[in-house]
């Protein structure tokens, strides 16, 4: 197979035959892969016995598709020895600023645009499922970016801090009646505390090992949340968490509610608008703090740590403090996001904080190009927005039949997209870096020159 690709397929029939042979092999392999798992479907029959139903057509059509795609690929790329690499144009500082400003403007106007274009009925979906959902992941991505992108500490248990924030808010507000605005900073503080607590034992670890230990910590926290039923309610979770208020004015239809106070007609959209701007503000706060911190000595210490821990130590950087602050600040933003999600849903359960969430957040950071703020935002929009968009593809039912449910394929495509983006651009979507501090003119460099961090 490899021989066929590496040989210059310059001309004539032998190349075509080789391509056919190669594609036939790929088709055959696909048929082999699909043999039991695609070709037979297991079903429970009426007497609760497992039976199998053949559906060879599906297996054969996949094999045929693989054959056709491989053939098309070989035919069109014949003569080329390798895939051309495409890189994002390096933006000048001014262009980058313009794009950021335009993006910010669109974000600020987004709820109104959604309302204007889709009307009150459609706007709920567009603001809630798309706007707020994506912004939560943008914020989590930016928070994790501090740990992974700047300090180079690979954290696979970030969702633990998100959970700590959410449970802090839920418990404090349901048991002690604290308002959302008090819970928010407390959630951040508790999450930061947990960041330090969990960061302490892993100071010596690096790379993959660090990733696995943080994964274990994340799972331990989730399992404790499940099993400590007296406090956390176990699988049932915590419900009726008070909603956030507009500086003490609740979003309801009562006399003292937001609508009545400002002389507006009551609609649930008010709360959504408020939540949208709240998460936008939190996300922008994360971004602003990150950008500022990068210029402070601590931010530069993080980046030094990422590039070379031993050299950083030799130059007198206190690696313990540097690592712990990265964990704590990253965790704090996770905690803020957790406080927000608890107040937004009014319900939390351990199911919301599974490992898959950590993986998705880390994927967003890496796919965006580690350390790039705008890249993380783009990755969140593409990955979360793209999969949410699948819910909208009802017209596909017309093609594939009534039973076809595009939402089933959300995570499947998410996984495939992760693999595809890694192969296409291993350094993430935005793969050039601008130095934080420079003498004279700043020059962007390819992130291939940036170490991934073994710390």
């Amino acid at each position, binding site marked *: 197979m*490899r021989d066929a690709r590496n040989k210059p397929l310059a001309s004539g029939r032998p190349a075509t035959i080789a391509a056919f042979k190669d594609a036939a092999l790929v088709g055959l*392999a696909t048929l*082999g*892969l699909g*043999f*039991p*798992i*695609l070709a*037979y*479907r*297991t*079903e*429970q029959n009426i007497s609760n*016995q*497992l*039976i*199998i139903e053949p559906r060879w057509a599906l297996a054969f059509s996949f094999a045929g598709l693989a054959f056709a795609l491989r053939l098309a690929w070989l035919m069109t790329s014949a003569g080329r020895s390798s895939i051309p690499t495409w890189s994002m144009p390096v933006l000048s500082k001014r262009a980058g600023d313009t794009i950021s400003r335009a993006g910010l403007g669109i974000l600020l106007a987004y709820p109104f645009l959604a309302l204007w274009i889709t009307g009150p009925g459609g706007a709920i979906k567009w603001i809630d499922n798309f706007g707020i959902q994506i912004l939560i992941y943008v914020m989590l991505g930016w928070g994790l970016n501090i740990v992974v992108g700047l300090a180079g500490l*690979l954290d696979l248990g970030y969702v633990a801090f998100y959970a700590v924030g959410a449970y802090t808010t839920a418990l404090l507000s349901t048991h002690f009646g604290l308002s959302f605005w008090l819970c928010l900073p407390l959630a951040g503080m508790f999450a930061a505390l947990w960041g330090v607590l969990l960061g302490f*034992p*892993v100071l010596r*670890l690096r*790379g*993959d*090992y660090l*990733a*696995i*230990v943080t*994964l*274990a*910590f994340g*799972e*331990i926290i989730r*399992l*404790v949340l499940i*099993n400590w039923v007296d406090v956390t309610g176990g699988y049932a979770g915590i419900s009726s968490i008070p909603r956030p208020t507009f500086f003490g004015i609740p979003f309801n239809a009562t006399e003292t509610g937001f609508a009545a106070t400002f002389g507006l007609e009551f609609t649930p959209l008010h709360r959504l608008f408020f939540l949208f701007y709240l998460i936008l503000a939190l996300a922008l706060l994360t971004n602003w703090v990150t950008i500022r911190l990068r210029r402070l000595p601590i931010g530069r210490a993080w980046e030094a740590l990422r590039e070379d821990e031993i050299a950083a130590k030799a130059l007198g950087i206190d690696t313990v403090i540097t690592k712990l602050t990265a964990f704590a600040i990253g965790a704090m933003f996770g905690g803020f996001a957790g406080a927000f999600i608890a107040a937004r849903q009014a319900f939390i359960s351990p199911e919301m904080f599974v*490992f*898959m969430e950590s*993986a998705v957040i*880390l*994927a967003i950071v*890496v*796919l965006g190009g*580690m350390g790039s703020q705008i890249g993380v935002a783009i990755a969140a929009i593409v990955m979360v927005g793209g999969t949410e968009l699948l819910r909208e593809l009802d017209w596909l039912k017309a093609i594939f039949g009534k039973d076809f449910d595009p939402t*089933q*394929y959300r*995570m*499947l495509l*998410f*996984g*495939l*997209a*992760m*693999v595809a983006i*890694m*192969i296409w651009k*291993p*350094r993430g979507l935005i793969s050039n870096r601008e130095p934080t501090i420079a003498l004279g003119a700043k020059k962007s460099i390819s992130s*291939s020159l940036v170490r*991934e961090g*073994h710390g």
Partner: protein
Amino acid sequence: MGIELCSWGDMDYFLQQLVNGLTLGSIYGLIAIGYTMVFGIIGMVNFAHGDVFMLSTFISVIVLLILTQILGISSIALALFLVLIAAMVLTALWNWAIERVAYRPLRGSFRLAPLISAIGMSIFLMNFVQVVQGPRNKSVPPLMTDLLVIPIGTSNITISLKQIFIMATTALLLAAFWYVVQKTSLGRAQRACEQDRKMAALLGIDVDRTVSITFVLGAALAAVAGVMYVVQYGVVNFSDGFVPGVKAFTAAVLGGIGSLPGAVLGGLLIGLIEVMWSAYFSIDYKDVAAFSILAIVLIFMPSGLLGKPDVEKV
């Protein structure tokens, strides 16, 4: 958390749990070899390996049903033998394809890329099985229900035939695997690549092929674990790859990552700890125990029980 004092002295109960623990441990050990071999040769935590194991359980269930329902094979022993062969071949094919598509293009790329690709593959496999086979639990009727009662002193311990089958098959296949790695040229190439990939390439070893073979062998052993899992528990679900995967990885780490005997030893230990923990302490926190061991071993003893210490080079 009811600790019954009488059960501490109950030898009978202890031996019973010992057998259960070794059975579970054999399954973990078989999966752990896949992790440890891949880590040894390309230095990557193959996150999708747990899901490859899950896929193999589905393949074994479907092949078993094909054999019994369509081909009408009534002999359980023959059916299981065929299931074992088919599951090993097909799972190996899957892992070979996964390596070709998702990991090989990233060889030599920066270190996080294969990890992210593997996480993506894990998400894909899990959801692929969910989409094509449905989200519900799939259970097969119990296989090999015969019990064997062994009198020890005044009491008896009961070992089911399937537990003997699982342990015997595991031991047999591990011996075969050991032979392949230690005595054949294939195994020599594999070990050479593990020590120094560049040097092995210079000496004429096809590194890509060797890595492929590593994935194939790892998947074949995971498939054995998958068949054992189906025989022992009889229920498969698309989401049952992650937790056994993490526990097997814990086993690999505990035994010393990169070490094959270590993986088996670690697997047996993790299986025993899990079963004993559930038997004497609390079943709710058994997964917490496994994850805690993972964290503690990695923090305090990163080279594991049988691994070589990692020398830091400046």
